[in-house]
């Protein structure tokens, strides 16, 4: 239970946009991404996550990538950057719902060897909670 807070942020960038849906529950930030993740949108994802880490003390971040249609090394860089930021704080970054063609790019980058991937949000929430 506890306090649940819902924040929805929509960022529209004309044709090539990325929508972010934010949900904060206790110290976990859930971010649902919908759109293209490149150098243009990466900075928005970085800011959206970093502000919660710094101002709210968020230590667990779950990224739902179900709606991501494109990712390149700039997009992967922002994900890896958040992982690196959370690590020394004792935090965790989890990724869920990765579309197959996005996973192929991620696999080539070696990201799945570093960051934990989950089938869906429920599995990501579950792991590490009971222990």
């Amino acid at each position, binding site marked *: 239970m506890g306090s649940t807070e819902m924040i929805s942020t929509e960022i529209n960038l004309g044709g090539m946009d990325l929508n972010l849906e934010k949900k904060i529950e206790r110290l976990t930030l859930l971010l649902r991404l919908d759109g293209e993740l490149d150098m243009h949108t990466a900075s928005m994802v970085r800011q959206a996550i970093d502000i919660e880490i710094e101002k709210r003390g968020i230590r667990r971040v779950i990224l739902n990538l179900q709606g991501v249609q*494109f990712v390149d090394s700039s997009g992967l860089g922002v994900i890896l950057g958040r992982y690196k930021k959370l690590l020394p704080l004792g935090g965790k970054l989890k990724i869920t719902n990765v579309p197959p063609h996005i996973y192929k790019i991620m696999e080539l980058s070696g990201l799945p060897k570093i960051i934990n991937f989950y089938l869906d949000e429920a599995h990501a929430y579950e792991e590490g909670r009971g222990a």
Partner: protein
Amino acid sequence: MKTNQLILTFSSISENVGITRLLIASVGAQLDLSLNDIEELKVAVSEAVSNAIIHGYKNDPNHIVYLDLEITGDTLKIVVKDEGCGISDVEQAMQPAYSTDPERMGLGFVFMQSFMDELQVDSALEVGTTVTMIKHLKQTPTASH
């Protein structure tokens, strides 16, 4: 033998990276490439153009990036050119995990190399960088030699 050429010159702003992806995707669709091939071309173009803006022009929006798409027979040539700062050591810059920025993975050239059949980088300090990528288009089963 089909021949086609498209040239796009655009400001070095991040919004334009998505537009270059739309262009290569449209060209790929016109060439009847598979969705997978088109996805790969989009990543390769995105990396080259992002490099030009981020590294070539150091995110200064007041410059011009050149994209040249050329289809000659079964060859697709993509040239991305900037007139920026240039790369001092191209060989080093092309190494996996080489990056001047900890937020980036140093994978731009790795993706370009993986998704294209040929990759050539010509660069001179304070002159600029030209990235030339070639994709050999698969022959359709009915095509004759």
